[in-house]
């Protein structure tokens, strides 16, 4: 069953001038239909302004579509009675780690979601412990979030969502403001959750190297889904990705250059090992 399904979703940003007259309309989502399978690790790629963040906000009813429908675990996001169920099912981690941590102590922040849901005190403590352990931040539970690195803060944010026991976690460019080390920490934590806890992960990003291990990749541009497939399928389309001005990992790019120059290499090379192996075979 699809944990998230969208049907013909349309969403527009309307700009108005000081008098309230409409001065322009940007179609952020242009009739998006997709299905996300339970337990999958999904990546949504696209450059700034492609609509990927707007789509993410539809997955937990922060935004609702103007036309079309979004279902989260069978619930229509336009149904106001279901809003807390939906937000509990699809947790969300945002871009700026500073602007989503509410608590002044790590453990208290992680407890914030369960507190809102009315979970009994003892159960909150249990969930906080489990969630912090799952992202490798348990030893920091008594720390102030202000003294953590960006990657650590984002892992606390993930733990905060995890403590609500969601079936699905949507990460909206969680690494855009982090350094390479922080990025690795966050992506590893997300992958771990997907593998060990079976949580569906939807990762929105513009860093190509973060999507290599995804089960399925959607590429967005101009509010539409322009490509979808496995990372291997997507990465074999280097020309198309370049046309969209998206990054291609150096390995893939080099393999593509070599292929263009007549070397007989397999399609969609993603790792150094694959490439070295392929080149060795050409000798």
């Amino acid at each position, binding site marked *: 069953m699809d944990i998230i399904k969208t049907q013909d979703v349309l969403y527009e940003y309307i700009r108005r001038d000081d008098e309230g007259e409409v001065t322009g309309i940007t179609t952020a989502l242009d009739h998006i239909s997709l299905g996300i399978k339970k337990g999958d690790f999904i990546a949504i790629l696209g*450059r*700034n*302004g492609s609509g990927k963040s707007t789509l993410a906000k539809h997955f937990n009813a922060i935004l609702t579509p103007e036309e079309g429908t979004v279902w989260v675990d069978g619930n229509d996001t336009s149904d106001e009675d279901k809003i807390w169920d939906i937000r509990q099912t699809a947790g969300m981690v945002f871009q700026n780690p500073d602007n989503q941590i509410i608590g002044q102590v790590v453990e208290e922040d992680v407890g914030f979601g369960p507190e809102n849901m009315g979970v009994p005190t003892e159960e909150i403590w249990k969930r906080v412990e489990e969630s912090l352990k799952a992202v490798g931040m348990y030893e920091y539970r008594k720390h102030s979030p202000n003294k953590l*690195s*960006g990657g650590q803060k984002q892992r606390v944010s993930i733990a905060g969502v995890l403590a609500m026991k969601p079936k699905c976690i949507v990460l909206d460019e969680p690494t*855009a*403001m982090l*350094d*390479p*080390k*922080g990025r690795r920490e966050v992506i590893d934590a997300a992958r771990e959750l997907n593998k060990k806890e079976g949580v569906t992960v939807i990762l929105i990003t*513009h860093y190509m190297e973060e999507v290599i291990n995804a089960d399925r990749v959607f590429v967005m541009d101009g509010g539409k889904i322009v490509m979808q497939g496995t990372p291997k399928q997507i990465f074999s389309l280097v020309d198309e990705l370049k046309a969209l*001005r*998206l*990054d291609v*990992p*150096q*390995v893939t*790019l*080099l393999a593509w*250059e*070599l292929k263009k*120059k*007549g*070397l007989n290499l397999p399609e969609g090379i993603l790792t*150094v*090992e694959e*490439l*070295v192996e392929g*080149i*060795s075979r*050409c*000798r």
Partner: protein
Amino acid sequence: MSIIIDHVNYIFGKGTEMEHKALRDICLSIPDGQFIGIIGHTGSGKSTLMQHLNGLLKASEGAIYYNGEDIYEKGYDLKKLRSKVGLVFQYPEHQLFAETVLADVCYGPKNQGLDKKECELRAYDALKKVGFPEDLIYSSPFDLSGGQKRRVAIAGVLAMNPEVLILDEPTAGLDPRGRDEILGLIKELQKTENMTILLVSHSMEDVAEYVDRIVVMNKGEIFLDNTPREVFSQYKELEAIGLSAPQVTYIMHALREKGLNVSEEITTIGKAADEILRALGKTGK
């Protein structure tokens, strides 16, 4: 004309419980017209060092010379230094404040005491250099896209006609397209204006193509200082401090280990492809 950093130490939060040595015995000579990449983790001291170069932070020990003059000398004009050494902070668009793009870019020249016309000419010129569309110069900087805002913010520093331009992670938060555009722009400035550029980044891959020299910082010290080629050849040392060389370096090394006679000093994709074909004996075309 050059900058010399002579045995600089900086102690952060002196006398508080947060006290720590943010810079340890930094010696660096920055000749004119060079494009230098300053690489390091968050907290490695790279941003702290940059803020010393225009006198925003004062070294606890050591000296800094700009064009042969000691900037800590009594009576040295720090305000003038700041117009010579332009510093673009991380997320510079967060510092925009004026009602129009043009007015915002005029802020720097205005502080230099220039008259209105001169300010506007400078601003206009700077906006042109960063490739900002002319028809938008009277719009509010807050209505622009992220990439455009960043251009305006960089223009705001360029309008002061600096000789040295320091950029603290100028591509943070931009998508690949925005990143390539900004980096290309900076390279262009170095070439056409003969500016000295210091680019702070945590990504080797980003700077590899552009810079003449890489300074790697770690825990407040200079860890490596050399050409990109030499720095990347020490990729094992880089890994020891949690950094990594561009992927190409790893590919070339792996190929050599497999017995393919490729040069390990390649740092860019185009050259790597040619080198591999050469080693395979498949040149031609």
